[in-house]
């Protein structure tokens, strides 16, 4: 088990390197391939009406005129060993992990990421709990009452949930619950430590909207899995043994359905932690997703690199945790 984890951690580092390489290539290489010069790249980061010498200065400062592989090398070195940054009268230093300094406001990227992370984590974890419990519960009940009104209705809603784009449901929710009926006025993020009640209150709408979309999927999967499992022989045996029905359902039936659910939950949560761009832009919550969106609009390369690497990290770690959980849930799985 330990070896498995160690092997996977090495794998994580390797994967992160590959992701960083590809991301770097996209931002630094593709514009070159498409014909842009370093000068044109640098021109995006100065104010209006720059003088030509100014653009050249910025080009040098941001390192854009160096060959791409050199820029990449510097970037990776910077992450591990920290970077020195010429802030003017003195030199700033940011320690590991240093994702560089923003091209726009010249502030270190990592602290900005960390200050935005709580929003995304609140959003993702809260919604995740909701959709996991809600989706699985609905799926189980639907499977047990197959063909009933509840089953048809919930599966219908589930289909609607996976068919509606989240920015549409979010918008509808905002229009109705925030602006028209004023149940949740002024949705914006309040820190958990500052005001827990307001924190939860302002997150209810985004949680529900997010959970609606995912719960639908989980309900469908759970239902399909339960239907298959409940027809198996060992369920009949368990019932014949006289076990209470609830035990049969939960301990025996649900257990084997859990594997695909856990897989998908891990992947979904990992992805969501990397930044729920759509939800955050609709509800204007300043989390990692919104940060990414702004960074891309501003073509702020260090910020984009930083958030992409962080997002990938979450995805990879989530998958690792899922794989470890497999061994607990399904004793047939050996690492």
């Amino acid at each position, binding site marked *: 088990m330990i070896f498995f984890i160690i092997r996977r951690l090495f*794998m994580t580092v390797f*994967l992160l390197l*590959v*992701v960083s390489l*590809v*991301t770097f290539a*996209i*931002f630094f290489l*593709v*514009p070159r*391939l*498409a*014909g*842009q010069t370093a000068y044109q790249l640098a021109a995006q980061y100065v104010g209006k009406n720059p003088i030509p010498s100014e653009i050249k200065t910025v080009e040098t400062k941001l390192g854009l005129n160096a060959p791409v592989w050199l820029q990449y090398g510097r970037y990776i070195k910077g992450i591990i060993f920290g970077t020195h940054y010429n802030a003017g009268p003195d030199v700033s230093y940011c320690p590991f992990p240093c994702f560089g300094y923003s091209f726009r406001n010249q502030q270190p990227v990592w602290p900005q990421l960390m200050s935005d992370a709580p929003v995304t984590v609140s959003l993702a974890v809260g919604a995740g709990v909701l959709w996991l419990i809600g989706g699985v519960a609905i799926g189980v009940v639907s499977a047990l009452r197959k063909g009933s009104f509840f089953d048809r209705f919930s599966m219908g809603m589930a*289909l*609607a949930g*996976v*068919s*509606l*784009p*989240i*920015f*549409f449901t979010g*918008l*509808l929710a905002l*229009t109705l619950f925030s602006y028209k009926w004023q149940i949740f006025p002024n949705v914006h993020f309040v820190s958990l430590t500052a005001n827990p009640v307001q924190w939860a209150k302002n997150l209810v709408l985004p949680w529900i909207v997010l959970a609606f*979309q*995912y719960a639908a*999927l989980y309900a469908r*999967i759970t239902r*399909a*899995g339960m*239907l*298959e499992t409940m027809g198996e022989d060992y369920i009949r045996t368990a019932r014949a043994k006289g076990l209470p029905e609830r035990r049969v359902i939960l301990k025996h039936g649900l257990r084997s*359905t859990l594997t*695909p659910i856990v*897989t*998908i939950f891990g*992947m*979904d949560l990992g*992805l969501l932690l*990397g*930044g729920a*761009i*759509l939800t955050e*832009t*609709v509800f204007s919550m300043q989390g990692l997703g919104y940060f*990414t*969106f702004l960074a*891309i*609009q501003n*073509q702020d390369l260090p910020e*984009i690199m930083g*958030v*992409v690497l962080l*997002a*990938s990290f979450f*995805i*990879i770690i989530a*998958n690792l945790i899922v794989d470890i959980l497999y061994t607990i849930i399904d004793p047939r799985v050996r690492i």
Partner: protein
Amino acid sequence: MAVPIDVTTGPGGPPEAGATSSGRAIEGRSLGQIAWLRLRRDKVAMGGGIVVVLLILVAIIGPHVVGNPDLYHSNLVDPTVLRPTGSFGGISLAHPLGVEPENGRDVLARIVVGTQYSLLIAFLATALSVIIGTFFGIIAGYFGGWVDAVIARTMDVFLAFPLLLFALALANVIPYSAFGLSGNTLKIAVMVFVIGFFAWPYLGRIIRGQTLSLREREFVDAARSLGARGPYILFRELLPNLVAPILVYATLLVPANILFEAALDYLGVGLYVPTPTWGQMLSIAVTNQYWQIDPWYMLMPGLAIFITVMAFNLFGDGLRDALDPKTR
């Protein structure tokens, strides 16, 4: 955001051929015939299928039938509040779905032309995913060993990318003309690439799993003992048996890609304005806050996306149920 493909819960192979129908002379039925019969009985799935066909027709014929989606009708809009003067967003005989706020463009025309782009990009992206995913999935599943290891690790790498972030970043970085293409042609190519290329592992994994279980079956052994070599087995024995899951997941991949494309449009990296696409209409509704003054304008593209995606999902579900009896 997760691609809403349901993971198969079991090894699931193609159903046996040769089931009998009641009463008549016993004839062998092919897989296709059995599946078609089952599908026909599923009314909901057939409904979805019909809508899909209709949508494709609308996408092909529609743009030639409706009016000009870019034409301004300023007279139909109130200049101070920028809201269409008619009720329900300006619905009238001339404009059955109303007009856009501020400039009075015909909503029906824009939705119809948007159908064309949405379906085109979604189909092309799905095709790209299917081709790459099937190719690598079969090879990984059949050859096993280090080939499988390399491909599986590659799939892990792809799955480690935050897909939406990536698509957003890549689409933003491409200038107006590059690589010999320009304008919307380039944008469509980029979007197809971005949506289709990074998503192939989802299909690849499933195909790999299917191939792994299929290659242990007797017919493969039989073919091998008759002297068949790798490529023959791959393409003449395995692939036909994989058509079912490929078809099912391709059908389920299309709506996911439609949603993905709408999301990219919404975030502002879709096709160039004033090209009408559904996601962009929703985006305009948000940035210009039209959804507060004229909610009908927001409903139209939302419903268009909803109906399209729903239809594909229903049809895909039905297809899967028809091809695999275990998920009934």
